[in-house]
């Protein structure tokens, strides 16, 4: 098979070209996402320094805040920096859906088993 990414007249790659004016708008978006990512990181670090780990509800809420902020960051990186958001919907789906199906299962099973293992350890310690 001919390697379509190496041939000169690669329609897919050539179609990704944009004009100087479009470039200005795209760069503006890139800088905006940079600011968002930096601010989220700063908030995370600030929260990490301020709040100590404990067995309270506050800490549980903070933990979930960390996870949600991280998912926001990940979304910006994947959708804007890797411009998956600009790809066709079917490519977006074959990348994201299988990943989430596997990982949701893996997280569920590992945490359930981990907690059960913890119980066994306590029992036979």
């Amino acid at each position: 098979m001919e390697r379509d990414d190496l041939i000169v007249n690669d329609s897919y790659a050539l179609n990704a070209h944009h004009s100087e004016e479009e470039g200005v708008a795209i760069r503006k978006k890139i800088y905006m996402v940079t600011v968002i990512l930096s601010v989220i990181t700063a908030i995370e670090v600030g929260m990490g320094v301020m709040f100590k780990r404990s067995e309270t509800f506050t800490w549980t809420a903070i933990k979930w805040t960390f996870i949600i902020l991280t998912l926001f960051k990940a979304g910006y990186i994947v959708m804007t920096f890797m411009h998956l958001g600009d790809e066709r919907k079917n490519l977006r789906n074959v990348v994201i859906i299988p990943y989430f199906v596997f990982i949701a299962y893996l997280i569920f099973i590992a945490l359930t088993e981990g907690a059960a293992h913890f119980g066994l350890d306590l029992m036979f310690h």
Partner: protein
Amino acid sequence: MSGEASKAISKEVLWGGGRSPFSVSYGKMMMWYFLVSDALTFSGLLVAYGFSRASATDAWPIGEQVFRALPGLEGQYPLIYVALMTFILIVSSVTMVLAVEAGHRNDRSAVLKWMGLTIIGGFFFLGSQAWEWSHFIHGSGGSFLLAEDVTVTGPEGETFELTAGDAVYMDHHFGHLMEMHLAGNTAVTLSEDGGHVVLTELGDHPHEAHLHGLTLNKYVEGETVIEGGAMMDLWNARSADFAFGANLHDSEYAYQQSYSNFFFFITGFHGFHVFSGVIINIVVFLMVLNRVMERRKHYEMVEKVGLYWHFVDLVWVFVFTFFYLI
């Protein structure tokens, strides 16, 4: 980025062969598939870390108490160094996406400029990680385990009932002198003076160092510094079981060796990705320099290596949250 991706393609040609149903080149699609599989690998590692942590019966170290040093500075700066590393990686991701954008405008000199900066950012990150590993391996003072049960009073009059096998932490300066002492290479004279352990001789020459305090629960909840006579009680109850920093057998940070092992494996595997990303970036930089992309009339290779580089940043975002923050 606008491209064919945003255009409608008639249904007849989608699966009829001859063109990609995803409107991307073969190389770019395969890069995405590779990234999905690599993302599964990293997720597996982080989930394994979560499993170990959820099943651990002993206290798990707190990130902001383990990672709170800055190169060349005394004092405590929780998470600042890791935040700096995160920021370096985010910035190098931004310069990469700017290189991709310049490529879409066929602006060769801008591609070179932004890729060059990305490579420099990558080296900065690798250097930071080298320092962090070195600091983690050397540790901050070391710990010893108690040989017998001790009850000591804390600075605010609270009582700590410690049992044999509990860990007690030394300060940085003294701990590293003890490390030499225990290695058996150096003659070290230790004495007791007004509630301090004093070291007066190191090797052939006099060397004065005081152990001012010992820390309890250094890397977990309830960190307390014990000084004076109570400190001497702890010191006198020490066993021969010392740990300095971390390696694959021993760790001052946690009873569970798995904590250090996961640190080495997860950040090491990520660092290896950064390293290979820098190498691939250099290769593509040289291709741009040799005008290969001009002959092809497009800079898609920059976009593909960019995907890999952003992925490395993406992984670090998760490592940062799950290893350092939570």
